[in-house]
């Protein structure tokens, strides 16, 4: 066994000493590149869209709807958004878009998410692009060093994300009003925000850190029947974590786009009652 060998480039990887010598880097014949390519395309599109919207600092409120990108508002210069979560913790000195203050949390949550890690390690880092397709680099330290060792703080982002989900739920409640703030009304935008918040909750609760916290960390399920049942519930959601990750990403972008279209006057929100 050639354990510990670091030969010159070319003798490492699948052609390290002792292994079957095969010139081709890999012999896959299927479309292994398709899935990382799709990942890169969708994530890049989302990054472009959300960067534009986050810096725009405009068209994020159309009574009674608040864009999920701008809620809660932590700066004091937000539009007046009656009843929505305004907590000007940062006061006046913050001159940039207030979206930047709050987006750090969902961004951190998704950046350190176990599923998105897989997606971007494969898509953007080619580490690896697909199974049995070699990495294009000479050494690898995984998540053992700075900065990637910071992925271990994912659980903290989970708690922040849960708080954000509560606030977005509030935003759905106040969307059951009309343009003048009277209760008991509903429009298409209410449904859009509702669908978004359901996806956000499903994604947040299906998180691996959440699964660990509710019960996964226990050694004896039998001593904690309630937590065991919660763990079972989260585990079932967790099995769909990838699908929920994508669905909620689309959900949040579409919810913001909807508010943008209504606020900018490009579209008239159909009212149901």
């Amino acid at each position: 066994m050639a354990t510990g060998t670091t030969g010159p480039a070319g003798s490492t990887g699948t052609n390290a000493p002792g292994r079957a010598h095969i010139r081709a880097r890999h012999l896959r014949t299927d479309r292994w590149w398709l899935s990382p390519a799709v990942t890169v395309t969708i994530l890049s599109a989302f990054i472009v869209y959300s960067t534009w919207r986050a810096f725009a600092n405009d068209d994020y409120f159309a009574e009674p709807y608040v864009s999920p990108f701008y809620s809660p508002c932590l700066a004091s210069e937000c539009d007046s958004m009656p009843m929505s979560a305004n907590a000007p913790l940062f006061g006046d000195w913050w001159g940039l878009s207030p979206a930047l203050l709050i987006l750090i949390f969902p961004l951190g949550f998704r950046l350190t998410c176990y599923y998105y890690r897989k997606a971007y390690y494969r898509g953007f880092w080619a580490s690896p692009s697909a199974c049995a397709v070699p990495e294009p680099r000479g050494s690898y330290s995984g998540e053992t060093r700075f900065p990637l060792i910071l992925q271990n703080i994912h659980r903290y982002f989970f708690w922040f994300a849960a708080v954000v989900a509560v606030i977005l739920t509030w935003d759905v409640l106040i969307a059951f009003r009309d343009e003048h703030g009277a209760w008991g009304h509903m429009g298409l935008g209410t449904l859009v925000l509702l669908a978004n918040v359901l996806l956000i909750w499903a994604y947040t609760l299906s998180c691996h850190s959440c699964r660990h916290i509710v019960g996964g960390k226990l050694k004896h399920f039998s001593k904690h029947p309630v937590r065991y049942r919660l763990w079972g519930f989260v585990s079932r959601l967790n099995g769909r974590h990838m699908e929920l990750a994508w669905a909620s990403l689309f959900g949040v972008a579409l919810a913001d786009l909807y508010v943008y279209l209504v606020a900018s006057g490009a579209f008239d929100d159909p009212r149901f009652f």
Partner: protein
Amino acid sequence: MTYKADFRIWRGDTDGGELRDFKVEVNEGEVVLDIIHRLQATQAPDLAVRWNCKAGKCGSCSAEINGRPRLLCMTRMSTFAPDEVVTVTPMRTFPVIRDLVTDVSFNYAKARQVPSFTPPEGLKPGEYRMQQVDVERSQEFRKCIECFLCQNTCHVIRDFEDNKAAFSGPRFLMRIAELDMHPLDVADRQKAAQEEHGLGLCNITKCCTDVCPEHIHITDNALIPMKERVADRKYDPLVWLGNKIRRRGSGD
């Protein structure tokens, strides 16, 4: 349906080798291992291949087919078009012995480094009492047939020979998770997983799960829960503080 298929099979040993072309008969319902056996019987009597059960249960016939780690006996010929060239090579992470046979002793060495089940002191065999729900969770991991396809696919050692010393691979990190979740095991598995078996090198890209012929959720149910347990122990100051204050002894 019977047809002649094009096969490319790696033949050679540690000194070198090459992909050789064969034309060989394929019949309805056959698997790749059947074709390898037909080649042995007709054109290449000295072709080396390791197999035993032909039922996907012994884990001997691991190899790579069209670049994908698979069991030879569980890969149906019907998954290939009749005009498709089928390339078969040995596993590319372990040293080759001859043709399709590799030396998988790396895995046995790693297996020996995982301390065995450690019951509480004074508890003798026969006195073990466990609740069904507590043992259930790790049963999934016991379906493992030790084919080592997961070990072979994992890029941590497949692409970086020099990581072999530091990394035990998904199969044995899963074994550690199994013991850590065992209701009666008292050994400290969490620190060891990170510091001695290289759990931090895993970047949860799930290739082990993708190739496992037993469909064990290696990443979701063993590696990620283990990473969370390690985070409790090593990277989460609040959990550390909480445990200090509550002074939990036997754990829950």
